[in-house]
């Protein structure tokens, strides 16, 4: 166990935000889910008794009819904003006094940094380069992430859970988002920061970064398994496999979308366009864990090989 190596990575000034994320994200996830559970209990009670549902103020916070529903922004909100600004300033001050921003040697194109890493917030994309070619990992998938995020409000036809934390009423939406944000995006960043060493090789936490390490890993492409060598054969096989993947994944996603009575109710509200868009983004998102799996389980690099691009 090389504690020094761990400390070196964790204490690199630019990695401090990720160390902070390691604590902040679980905390806020717990914080949100705790409120969601409280709301879910209330929803359960209200559903059980229609009488209560009529009279209840429908929040987990205390309320009495004689209390005013609204408060003045001055001072009740402004004092919080002011306090927040002061706290953030103090945190920033302490952080800036105790930790110096990194400054390496002058830029030198002739001396490659190894590992050469992007800023931490892009390490998820850099980690995707292991599994996809740059045109996918660096351009197409990031664009799809942005478009997919922007499309969320237009695909989600579930009217419940607007303006309060809940798990029960939006199970699948929250599961999908948390899978994308927590599991894929943040985990990939953590791997890119803490695991990837020289040559972008996998070093377990505590393993010493060995700059002369060589990994004998022979990657194959899917057509090689079938001894297909011609360009046409490779292209057609890849297209067929991709089509099968989209079909199977689409069928699975459809199963989830129509899993229970509530899901079917939402499904009936969706237009065909909404349904197709949702399918497309979910299937494409699942492509990443699938490629990670087949790389590590079968050492397969490309599924689809054409003269112009590989997936």
């Amino acid at each position, binding site marked *: 166990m090389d504690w020094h190596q761990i400390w070196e990575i964790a204490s690199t000034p630019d990695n401090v935000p990720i160390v902070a994320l390691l604590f902040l994200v679980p905390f806020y996830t717990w914080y949100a889910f705790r409120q969601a559970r409280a709301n879910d209990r209330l929803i359960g009670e209200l559903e059980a008794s229609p009488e209560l549902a009529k009279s209840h103020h429908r929040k987990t916070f205390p309320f009495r009819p004689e*209390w005013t529903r609204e408060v003045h922004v001055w001072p009740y909100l402004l004092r919080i904003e002011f306090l927040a600004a002061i706290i953030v300033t103090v945190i920033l001050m302490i952080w800036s006094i105790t930790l110096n921003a990194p400054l390496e040697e002058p830029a030198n194109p002739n001396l490659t940094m190894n590992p050469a890493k992007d800023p931490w917030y892009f390490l998820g994309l850099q980690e995707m380069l292991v599994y996809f070619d740059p045109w996918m990992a660096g351009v197409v998938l990031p664009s799809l992430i942005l478009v997919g995020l922007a499309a969320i409000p237009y695909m989600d036809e579930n009217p419940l859970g607007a303006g309060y934390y809940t798990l029960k009423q939006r199970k699948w939406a929250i599961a999908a988002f948390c899978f994308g944000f927590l599991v894929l995006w943040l985990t990939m960043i953590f791997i890119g920061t803490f695991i990837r060493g020289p040559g972008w090789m996998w070093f377990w936490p505590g393993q010493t970064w060995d700059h002369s390490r060589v990994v004998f890993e022979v990657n194959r492409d899917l057509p090689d398994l079938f001894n297909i060598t011609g360009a046409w054969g490779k292209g057609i096989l890849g297209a067929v496999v991709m089509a099968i993947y989209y079909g199977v994944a689409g069928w699975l996603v459809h199963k989830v979308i129509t899993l229970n009575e509530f899901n079917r109710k939402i499904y009936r*509200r969706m237009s*065909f366009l909404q349904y197709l868009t949702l399918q497309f983004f979910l299937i494409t998102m699942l492509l990443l864990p699938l490629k990670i799996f087949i790389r590590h389980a079968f050492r397969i690099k490309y599924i689809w090989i054409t003269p112009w691009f590989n997936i």
Partner: protein
Amino acid sequence: MADENGNGKEQKGLTGVLEKVKVDTRALKDKAAEEIKTYKEYDRTQLYKSVFRVKHDETPRGRALGILTNVFLHLHPAKINRDAVRYSYTWGMGGISFYLFIVLTFTGVLLMFYYHPTKGQAFRDIIYLEADVPFGKLLRNMHRWAAHLMVITVWLHMFRVFLTGSYKKPREFNWVVGVVLMLFTLLLSFTGYLLPDDQLGFWAVTVGTNMARATPLLGHEGPFGPQLGMNPFNDVRFALLGGSIVDANALLRSYIWHCIGIPLVISLFMAVHFWRVRKDGGISGPAPVMLESEIKEIKRGAVAAPIKAGGR
């Protein structure tokens, strides 16, 4: 005689003048004393009224006017839901992101005084800044850490907005604006990374922009790029860097995007974002919970009819 007369007149004149001055001074003193009394009610002076326009007192009206008549505060409504001030709901992340943007603008402008975006000079400027400029090191540290913190707070803000379902009707478009703001936050941070012109920034930007080579159609190593006549000297990466390698032009472009281009655009989007929060009915909650039995049937135009229940 004439002299005496003259002298007498002068004396008389002098005492007269002195007398007059005395009287005037006394009157002036009284007037000043009177005036000072009125200044104690400072909120009735012309100066105060011209600046603050309305009386600010502890009345509900005064509190409301305090928000509504102030250009910096009027983005707020005068009153909000009593639960909306709870930290547990918003986590304060949107507001903190905006505050960090202000901190970054402030420290960034100060940093610009000490920086030349030219190869060779840029790195030396950072050394000088850290060694010679009073609080220079603190200034640079604050700019850097605030930038990192802003990326975190923006992500957490997005996470909160998703978990509370705040993107739902009628706030769909503001979510889209938010996604654009997140992209620009990352781009701001990324363009700033190159500016110290050290190994860290140079290789990070090299790695980052190398991906642009692979842009489909527009990159010289991307799918169908070569077929469309892309080469290292005319593709999208060339446009980003102002050259085929990360060099002086890339530094200048990075600097201009970082200090002028993106801040201008992001400010516009921020204005829309905040304005839409108000126009869409203020912050989304904490709203009363809605029950499954209360879902209303959807109304849709003829163009997009709901699909029939295919899933049984």
